[in-house]
């Protein structure tokens, strides 16, 4: 009995110590994550004038989000984020899987190519955006190369064209982070026991069959992680638009995203103008937070269920 009591008192001290050790981190988390989050949620229920919180407005900011003139911006930006997400899934995670598979099949030089793919991820999206803006500008290298190959004529204005600008930005973003799926998929593929592939080969499966019927189901955790990350990143997309098209998502709001719209509402710059609508911005921020949290939870569950255990 005494020994047991002794143990529990020791455990209790340990527990208390543990709480003590967690406290600083918890305080930092509370101060810099929970507090601003709750404050912005609180602020979204108020009318704002200029920079100051005025009277309680209930859900007025939230309803205002969906009606003219904000509604058009919200739906436009939301659609661009959705398009961005699917674009990234296809261009970045899809091609990434393909590259990883090719590297896996041909082991020699894999490490080298892996670093080649990963290189752009070392650069800040701001640098990547500025770089591609220069490359894609009229009179830039892309124009010169395309004209030289006879694929294009005249000056290249893809970034100034509201039909092509968004696709260009998505492609640049995919280029920037291509290394990540390659890295994660290769790691995932290496973890799969080689015997499985050998057995499949003996059964007469080709490379494509092995990728889709064997590797892909086993890569489900990696795919889940990448999809969730891509979801969060694309819905928070800001920097590439900001650097390449400005905070209005020009031309004609064709590259506007939820966060660039948020930025304009919160910090002005709508038409180079410093008039803010902080109430609306906070309502949008709250919405975005909900969309991201719920979406992420659903995705994690979806992929958890589909994970194949051997």
């Amino acid at each position, binding site marked *: 009995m005494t020994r047991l009591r002794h143990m529990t008192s020791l455990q209790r001290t340990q527990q208390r110590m543990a709480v003590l050790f967690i406290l600083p981190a918890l305080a930092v988390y509370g101060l810099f994550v929970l507090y601003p989050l709750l404050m912005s949620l609180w602020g979204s229920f108020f009318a704002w004038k200029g*920079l100051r919180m005025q009277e309680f407005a209930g859900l007025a900011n939230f309803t205002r989000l969906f009606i003219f003139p904000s509604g058009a911006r919200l739906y436009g930006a939301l659609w661009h984020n959705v398009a961005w997400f699917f674009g990234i899934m296809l261009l970045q995670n899809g091609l990434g899987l393909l590259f990883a598979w090719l590297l896996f099949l041909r082991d020699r030089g894999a490490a080298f190519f892996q670093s080649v793919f990963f290189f752009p991820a070392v650069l800040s999206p701001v640098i990547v955006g500025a770089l591609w803006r220069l490359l894609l500008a*009229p009179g830039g290298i892309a124009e010169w190369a395309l004209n030289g190959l006879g694929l294009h004529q005249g000056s290249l204005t893809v970034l*100034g064209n*509201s039909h092509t600008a968004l696709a260009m930005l998505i492609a640049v973003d995919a280029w920037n982070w291509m290394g990540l799926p390659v890295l994660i998929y290769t790691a995932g593929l290496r973890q799969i026991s080689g015997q499985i592939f050998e057995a499949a080969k003996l059964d007469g499966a080709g490379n494509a069959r092995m990728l889709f019927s064997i590797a892909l189901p086993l890569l489900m955790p990696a795919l889940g992680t990448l999809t969730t990350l891509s979801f969060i990143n694309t819905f928070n997309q800001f920097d590439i638009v900001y650097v390449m*098209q*400005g905070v209005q998502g*020009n031309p004609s709001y064709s590259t506007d995203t939820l966060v660039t719209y948020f930025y304009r509402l919160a910090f*002005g710059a709508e038409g180079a103008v410093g008039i803010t609508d902080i109430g609306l911005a906070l309502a949008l921020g709250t919405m975005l937070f909900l969309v991201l949290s719920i979406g992420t939870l659903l995705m994690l569950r979806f992929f958890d269920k589909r994970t194949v255990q051997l």
Partner: protein
Amino acid sequence: MSMLSIHRRAALGLIGGLAAACAGILTTAPARADSTVTLWSWRTEDEAAMRRIFDAFEKNNPGIKVDIQFTPDADYQNRLSTALRGGRGPDIAQLKAYGELQPFIEGGYLDALDDSVAELKNMPDAALGGVRGRADGKLYGVPYSVPMMGVFYNEDIFSAQGIEIPKTYKEFVATCDKLKAAGITPIANGGANGSAWELEIGVGVIGPTLYGPGFYDEMMSGKATFEDPRYVAALKRFAELKPYYSDGFAGIDYTTATQQFIGGKAAMFFGGSFENGSFKSQNPKLKFSIFPFPADDASTKLYTSAFSDGSYGLVSESQNKEAATKVLNFMASAEFAQLFADELGWPPARSDVTVKDPVLSKMMEMSKNSTPYLTLVGFRWQTPTASSVLQSEIIDMVEGNVAPEKLAADMQAAVSTWFKPKQ
């Protein structure tokens, strides 16, 4: 009194105390630099000139030092609002005009200057319109410039090609054709990558020659809207000149366009007065001047868009108001206006100056026939502003993807959400 000046006084006191009684010296010594007035500005390109202007002030006011801090335009408004909210703003802040100024007034961050800066009474209405509080009609800033808009042109290219300043729109187009045939870009223009405000200025250059000087009042009283054929005609004309704009217009940004003009690759540039100083400082050899955009008929009196560019205001929470007010009084004086005109080369807020720069004198001549810069003076009071719609859709309009009528209708729909005409 701020901690800073207490420390300064204490330090001075210690030094002085070796020789005499501290108190006596501290209250009588006239020539101590005991006040540093911080001043924030977004005009990074004017840094050297502003420094020289305030050197002149400091020489005459030995007790006051002016510490000018610059933040690039794109981040300025954001930085200032954040600083003011946190109570860490400057003593004097450069302020945007009209609607962009109001949030600071409504938030109570600025002091009205009607009583403390007497010289404001000597400033023209075009300058003061931009600094007036909408609710109380008081003046919250000392305006520094009333810029206007026109067509900058390269004098060397014009004379080499034997081109005169066009008198009619037809002549203007003929001029462009001639330049194009000679392999020179007629008009450096572009607003990609978030610099579409430059294209809005282009409309401000062309507009008054088509809608005339009375149009602003008609818009304000609700007699006319953006869908008025006269305004749509201005948009159309801006789009119609596309063949003469920089190659790859939709992908060219403001910086590239100005470089084309400054580098002598393009013959003309639609711009505001503020380009004068920066063009000169970037290429002192460039010979250029400005003319108002021509109308269809040579006999039409040519009007130009003008506006109050901004002002300098006194931050309410400043610990240094006495010295800051002195600085503001200097900025409202004829002496400052003269220095401003000489150093920066754009029209100062006061007209009682002697102008030496030929381009500036042309601009001051042009600004005699001016009408308010419609989208800024009239329609940038609340979001969505006319400018925000214009700036986002105008590239598509020039490229032919959006009809001028559609753009005009979108502008009208946007401002209708908040704009109430004055009867």
